[in-house]
């Protein structure tokens, strides 16, 4: 088992490699969320970005469960992310209980099985553009070194957004943010299309989309756009829907989990 320094170094190396090529911002941020979970002992993590009116939107998560997405959505009204976004400061909250400052968010987070929650600002110069959010399944203090690692990962997430060269004129931060947000909207629309075609949940649909994009070495957003535009050909479409069922078979072949169909 690699120690944390090794894992951290490999996270940044992977990121540096990724950012050189044409990359998909949602995909890379999703990978980063996965690494946050591993590096910080969190049970879930997510990255929120602000739109032109300062509303926060989920860009990437370590898991696409609806209950988790809803916890991010609530934070447009209240929650550690909103506090961190507004103040530009880290919000470290080790123990969600009756005294937590968020009357809607705290009970919802506890119901979803989380007992600690932390948010770290994504800052470009003096502007806060979003936050990195960590959910912990038990109440325990986040130690100073963990805080540093989390903040470093938040910076890495910021760099990813800034490096996104999806459009020719992405030298502007606003353009980059809008582009990233539109990518995410496109992916949500595509999740809906695939979920209806395959009669599966939207979280499963996301897995299918991602598997298909990876197997074809295509950008997730490009695949999502093609799905929404209905420009995948019949063969690709059946491969996409089969990509999901193959993955299910593989999972079933191993140790069938409690949620296996």
């Amino acid at each position: 088992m690699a120690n944390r320094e090794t894992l951290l170094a490999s996270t940044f190396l992977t990121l540096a490699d990724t950012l050189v090529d044409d990359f998909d911002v949602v995909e890379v941020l999703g990978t980063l969320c996965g690494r946050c979970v591993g590096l910080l002992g969190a049970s879930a993590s997510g990255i929120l970005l602000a739109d032109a009116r300062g509303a926060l939107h989920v860009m990437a998560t370590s898991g696409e469960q609806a209950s988790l997405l809803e916890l991010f959505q609530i934070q447009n009204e209240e929650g550690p992310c909103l506090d961190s976004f507004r103040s530009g400061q880290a919000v470290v909250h080790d123990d969600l209980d009756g005294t937590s400052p968020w009357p809607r968010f705290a009970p919802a987070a506890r119901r979803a099985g989380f007992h600690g929650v932390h948010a770290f600002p994504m800052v470009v110069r003096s502007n806060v553009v979003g936050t990195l959010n960590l959910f912990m399944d038990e109440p325990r203090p986040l130690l100073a070194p963990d805080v540093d690692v989390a903040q470093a990962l938040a910076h890495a997430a910021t760099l990813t957004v800034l490096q996104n060269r999806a459009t020719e004129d992405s030298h502007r931060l606003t353009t980059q943010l809008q582009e990233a947000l539109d990518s995410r909207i496109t992916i949500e629309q595509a999740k809906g299309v695939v979920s209806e075609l395959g009669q599966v949940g939207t979280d499963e649909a996301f897995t299918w989309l991602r598997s298909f994009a990876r197997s074809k070495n295509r950008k997730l957003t490009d695949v999502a756009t093609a799905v929404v535009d209905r420009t995948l050909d019949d063969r690709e479409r059946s491969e996409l829907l089969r990509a999901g069922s193959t993955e299910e078979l593989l999972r079933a072949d191993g140790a069938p989990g409690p949620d296996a169909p």
Partner: protein
Amino acid sequence: MGTLGCAPVTAGRDRWTRIMTLIAAHEGAELTGSGLCVAGAELLAVDGVAIALLTGDGVAVATYRSDLAFQPIEDLQFVLGVGPSLDAFRARRPVVEADLSEDASLRWPGLAHLALDAGVRSIAAFPLRIGAARIGALTVYDSRPRALEGDRLDDALALTAVVARTLVALQVADADDDLVPRLSRGTSVGGAVSPGEFPSGEIDHAEVHQASGMVSVQLGIDVGDALARLRARAFLDGTTVRAVAADVVARRLRFDP
């Protein structure tokens, strides 16, 4: 990046408020296509703004403009099937042409000459989109040869986001009505649609986008039209689009053709 221009978030809310205030000031009690254009032209300090509603293959369903002077250029784009607005729409990204007298005549033969004759020196075009759902294009005309950049570009991007959401909202204020006559004759702000509705971010919810995708399959329609159907349903049921979307995603509600 400039030091002054890159403050989208702290300035973002102000920008959004400023745009909504301008639109409200221009529109009075009604929202119209041309009113949105006039407000946009004032916001960006340019000579003209045009909005074209387009089908997926780039056919203009309707066009609106702040000033009739730009109508021939706008119309010609859709007759020829080439031009900055269509480029922006098809590529889903902004097209900024700072000086038409330089190289634009190669990109859009015929069009650049007509534009120059009409006194237009610079053009910028933006796709009106919500994710992959394409609604049309917003085009900015100016008699000065200057690139739309810096804060004005940020304003234009925010304006585009507002207009795209406004058009979707207007489209659904009542489902039986056609979008085009509705925009032309004006829509009561006091009714289903008001400038205050857009900052609420009703449309920009993950479940709404997922439900749009699902309904687009159920009805065999474009995802933008599906979003309109969701909003229409919410309006008829007297509920929110988020609530309707949640029912669709949970498969408690299906749309049948």
